[in-house]
């Protein structure tokens, strides 16, 4: 395998592994918790390194995952005191843990590959240099094996606990009443998030993990109404962003992880703007259509109210509509044209007549539908 292909493969695996737990983070409104965890695990990694004396030891992953769960517990503890709001609790806990990690690195681990740049951004480009050897044979980049295992773990976790995750996310009270401990599911899930963050940390650093965890699910959320499909779409968006990010970094000669995160942002923005039903463009269009539709209804009712009344001539003139209904002349013109087209009104010069259809339409409008 060429190094380029290997990098892309690691990138895709990292992105998909992050997107999966991200779905539930987004649905549980805990997006910020990914931020907290991905930073706080630095302390766990450093402590794991001190104990193991080796950067490749599995002890680092264990230590880091434990710190992630500790972060969640500490945030809850601070929040439960009732003295601090939850977002503030997050803001207090993780920088404390993170900063201890940073100080420990600067003070005691300056000579190893654990510098602050790598911590924040990771370095995906180095992934092919760190090989995995089994019985003296090269079996590919270590990152691919680590992240691949974490990805499988995530897939298995979601497959096994799908029902429990769904129920505790949607209705924790019912879950509790039915005997599915929401707290147990919560901490299992948070452990998964922590493990994923540790694995992705190497590749993309602690800040961009957040983008990979949150942006693809947030984009997918706008595209579908089905949880299963949302998970699949999140994974797909993550994978596509990873590959697109790689090639963008190639073009710009910039950080791969940075470009990947940028692409997840692009994917979210595209979904935010152009999602078929929930996108901004669709919403604006729908509102404009509703406004026009409503205005036609108003016009029909207006004409019906004054039909046969002494002021009918005055009230039914196109050039007076904007005064009576407080529309701009342009909008009034559009409403009249559209109403004519639909056969609601007939126009003679400046005078408008309600058609039979228009009268029925006005009548119907009084009945709530």
């Amino acid at each position, binding site marked *: 395998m060429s190094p380029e292909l290997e990098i892309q493969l690691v990138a895709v695996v990292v992105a998909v592994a992050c997107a999966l737990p991200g779905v539930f983070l987004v*649905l549980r409104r805990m997006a910020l918790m990914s931020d907290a965890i991905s930073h706080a695990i630095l302390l766990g990694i450093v402590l794991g390194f001190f104990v193991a004396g080796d950067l490749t030891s599995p002890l680092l992953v264990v230590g880091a995952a434990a710190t992630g769960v500790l972060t969640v517990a500490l945030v809850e503890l601070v929040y439960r005191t009732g003295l601090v709001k939850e977002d503030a609790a997050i803001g207090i806990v993780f920088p404390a843990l993170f900063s201890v990690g940073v100080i420990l690195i600067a003070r005691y681990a300056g000579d190893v590959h654990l510098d602050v740049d790598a911590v924040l951004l990771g370095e995906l480009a180095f992934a092919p240099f760190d090989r995995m050897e089994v019985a003296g044979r090269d079996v590919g980049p270590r990152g691919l094996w680590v992240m691949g295992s974490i990805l499988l773990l995530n897939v298995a976790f979601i497959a096994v606990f799908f*029902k429990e995750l769904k*129920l505790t996310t949607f209705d924790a*009270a019912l879950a509790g*009443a039915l005997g599915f401990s929401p707290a147990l599911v919560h901490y299992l899930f948070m452990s998964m998030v922590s493990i994923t963050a540790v694995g992705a940390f190497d590749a993309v650093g602690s800040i961009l993990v957040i983008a990979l965890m949150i942006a693809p699910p947030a984009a997918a959320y706008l595209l579908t*109404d089905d*949880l299963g499909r949302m998970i699949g779409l999140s994974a797909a968006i993550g994978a596509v962003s990873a590959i697109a990010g790689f090639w963008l970094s190639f073009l710009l000669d910039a950080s791969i992880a940075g470009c990947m995160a940028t692409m997840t942002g692009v994917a979210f923005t595209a979904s935010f703007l152009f999602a078929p039903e929930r996108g901004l463009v669709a919403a604006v269009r729908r509102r404009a259509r509703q406004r026009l539709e409503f205005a036609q209804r108003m016009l029909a009712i207006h004409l019906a109210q004054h039909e046969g009344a002494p002021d009918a001539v005055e009230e039914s003139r196109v050039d007076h509509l904007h005064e009576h209904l407080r529309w701009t002349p342009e909008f009034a013109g559009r409403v009249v044209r559209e109403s004519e087209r639909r056969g609601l009104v007939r126009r003679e010069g400046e005078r408008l007549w309600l058609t039979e259809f228009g009268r029925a339409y006005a009548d119907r409008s009084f009945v709530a539908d």
Partner: protein
Amino acid sequence: MTAERPAIEVNDLTVAYRDRPALWDIDLEVPSGVLMAIVGPNGAGKTTLIKAILGLVRPAAGQVQIHGRPYEENRRLVAYVPQRGSVDWDFPTNVLDVVMMGRYGALGWFRRPGRRERELAMAALEQVGMAAFADRQISQLSGGQQQRVFLARALVQDAQVYLMDEPFQGVDARTERAIVALLQELRASGRTVLVVHHDLQTVPEYFDWVMLLNVRRIASGPVDEVFTDRNLRLTYGGRVPFIAAVAPQGTGVGGDGRVGDGSPGPGRLAGEAGVAAAKRTADGSER
């Protein structure tokens, strides 16, 4: 099942949030096969009582038994309808899926719902008149439809005891009648139903038992015995003009001009507005 034991027994139950008691030494015995309202002002601990029965909040003291056993052992006998507003209705799922959640307890950990669960869920939707909405995304439901979906989810549990937290909240009159009919059917088939209720006016009409609660239990028992003016005054601290609420309609309680109220039928009576005003008073001031 031990039918001779009361459906729900609560002994000396005290729940406190920090040092503020939400429920203070509650004793309650609900016999099998009654339809019981829990009424009381806001902050009286109605939701807390339901949650304590379900083991969702930890009591400071006291115990709860369902048909003679602790809740943990008789979980399967109990169905729960939380407040409609307690969940995120934008959650990406459809009506059928939400109703199937009612079967999760019987399935236990790890087992996935299958065809049987789907059929049971469809039958429950049929019962609440929502079968046509099975595939509907839940965010597209009206308040009354959401409530009916929740009800179907409880029905599908096929429980002996139903605990419902404000099932009439924000539903229209027609849905309210449909829900009441269902609750009365449940009672007729021997189930026990506890309903947190806000509308004092309809208590005698809908329920045969009632509990008046304001942190302490003021009274509980058959409606015609305990739903008295005196007990209501004790419960609401004299804030409720219950006399006005049950007095002949149109006594002018509702002089606040809110006849329209945003959801008017053309023939809405001034007397109804009066009742509505009395209701609002009864609800207290939080909402």
